[in-house]
């Protein structure tokens, strides 16, 4: 069944007005699917990830609906969401370093966390040990303080804790971004392993790094300035993107093997628009080399077949 999001909009309240960080997004994530959510800073990807589990004080629900496994998810109702958090919907936050309580040994923190949810931790210990070993951590880490672990170890420990209750939906927010390449690989592979073993059903992996997504994600959703730009199978998005933004973004990525002098990469000129009362129409049109008169109207996010969808007038016809 998975996750179905329909026309979800979440704005940030500021003194200057509403910042339309998430402005009507609709998509679905199937069971067992790892969906990569990509985009540059300020495109709304983290806002989307957070909106699915907890709206913080500055975030304001505007419209839209969310369904998980056929049941509605009341994202606007903080108290009602509490019943779903950790059990049904869980998150691996951006900085695992700050997700762990520095004054508690990790094992004690896990027990306290489970108690707070009204769950007896004892029967879960065997499973906790097994999963720690699965991600290459010795169960002794439970007797250690967070400061005693490296960044990669902490990230993996948080992943195990977040998924302990086998959530239907896991949101992994920039979990590889602060890590070295070798740790990055271990953490990303652990995510796939968790899916393969059924610890989590659907996963949304939020990151700015498309090359990591290509390694682990089944589908990739690219966002731009609070809206969806393109969604499709990872292979299609990386090798046959059709939205001008995705094309330019992928063209700007340096890779091992590409050298300045032999092959000069080009950037995307301009900057994303301000999301404080943005102009009508396609938000990429100011930077788009193919922009035309039609682009003053917002292009619909339409399907072009094989699970590939995008929002661009050039492709809509």
């Amino acid at each position: 069944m998975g996750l179905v999001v329909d026309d979800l909009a979440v704005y940030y309240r500021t003194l200057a007005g509403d910042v339309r960080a998430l402005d009507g997004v609709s998509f679905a994530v199937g069971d067992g699917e790892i969906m990569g959510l990509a985009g540059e800073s300020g495109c709304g990807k983290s806002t989307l990830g957070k909106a699915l589990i907890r709206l913080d004080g500055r975030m304001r629900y505007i419209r839209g609906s969310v369904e998980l496994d056929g049941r509605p998810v009341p994202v606007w109702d903080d108290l009602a969401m509490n019943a779903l958090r950790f059990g049904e919907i869980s998150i691996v936050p951006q900085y695992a370093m700050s997700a762990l309580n520095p004054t508690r040994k990790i094992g004690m923190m896990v027990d306290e966390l489970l108690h707070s949810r009204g769950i007896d931790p004892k029967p879960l210990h065997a499973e906790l040990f097994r999963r720690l070993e699965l991600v290459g951590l010795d169960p002794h880490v439970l007797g250690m303080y967070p400061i005693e672990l490296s960044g990669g170890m902490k990230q993996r420990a948080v992943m195990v804790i977040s998924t302990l209750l086998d959530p239907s939906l896991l949101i992994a927010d920039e979990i590889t971004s602060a890590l070295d390449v070798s740790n990055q690989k271990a953490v990303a592979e652990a995510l796939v392993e968790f899916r393969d073993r059924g610890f989590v059903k659907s996963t949304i992996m939020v990151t700015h790094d498309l090359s990591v997504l290509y390694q682990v994600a089944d589908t990739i959703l690219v966002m731009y300035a609070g809206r969806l730009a393109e969604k499709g199978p990872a292979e299609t998005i990386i090798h046959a993107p059709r939205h001008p933004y995705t094309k330019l973004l992928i063209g700007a990525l340096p890779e091992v093997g590409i050298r300045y002098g032999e092959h000069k990469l080009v950037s995307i000129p301009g900057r994303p628009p301000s999301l404080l009362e943005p102009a009508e129409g396609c938000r990429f049109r100011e930077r788009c080399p193919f922009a035309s008169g039609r682009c003053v109207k917002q292009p619909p996010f339409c399907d072009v077949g094989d699970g590939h969808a995008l929002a661009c007038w050039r492709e809509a016809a």
Partner: protein
Amino acid sequence: MLAVDHVSKTYRIGTFGGTSLPAVRDVSFEVAPGEVLSLIGESGSGKSTIGKMILRLSPITSGTISFDGADVGGLHGRALKSYYRRVQGVFQDPFSSYNPIFKADRVFGLLRDSYFGGVPDGEWRARVEEALASVSLEPDQVLGKYPHQLSGGQLQRMLIARALLLEIDFLVADEMISMLDASTRIDVLNLLGDLKARGLGILFITHDLSLGNYISERTIILRRGRIVEMGATGRVFGSPQHPYTQMLLASVPRLHSRWERGAAAEALADDEAETPLVQVADDHYVAAA
């Protein structure tokens, strides 16, 4: 131009400095004018420490760093000031390089106060505008603004413009573009490429192998403060000899091939022993395993 000769750095750690942590161990390399040398390593490999020692932000424990033959460690007063006229650094977080309560272009004003007191107003303005233009910034878009009104890419380019005003010969770029978005970071990288063509020597410190590969002629792979592999970028990336380099390259996420699941994840042996660099090919050196 810049020569680093058997340099080591040991940090004193612990409450009373009782324990020591070797951060850089016996590192030697040279950078020629117009050359970009990438210093690649994971966190804790000592790559930033080397940059700090070159910039005299951190003292050297043993060995020497010399710039055009003069020992950098012995510079004081006027000599140090003229060293900074030729060698500058740009760091990872552009927001922390600016004082948030002053306008961003104050960095140019400070520069004028300490180095260009005799330059008349009109000429100084022209110089600033020229430096901004060479990093493709519009002067009226950035001058008179506060740091929070500018993007990370703009701030980072202003810092490069500041370095250009000094007409520097050598730039230490420590994770300079790691915080920028994909669409803007390539601009800054290409800018470094243009500057290199003008004869600027660059030490490009990064943990991102693909960025290092894109811009540099020569590459050094550091591990725990020691050089494990060094040479022409094409050789180091094309035929890596040291198991650590091979593991790093296998872990880099790429757009054209997928990871081999599980491979290369095994821990490499911790070689604490001295491992001298051995030449394996023309301009390609590897620490003997």
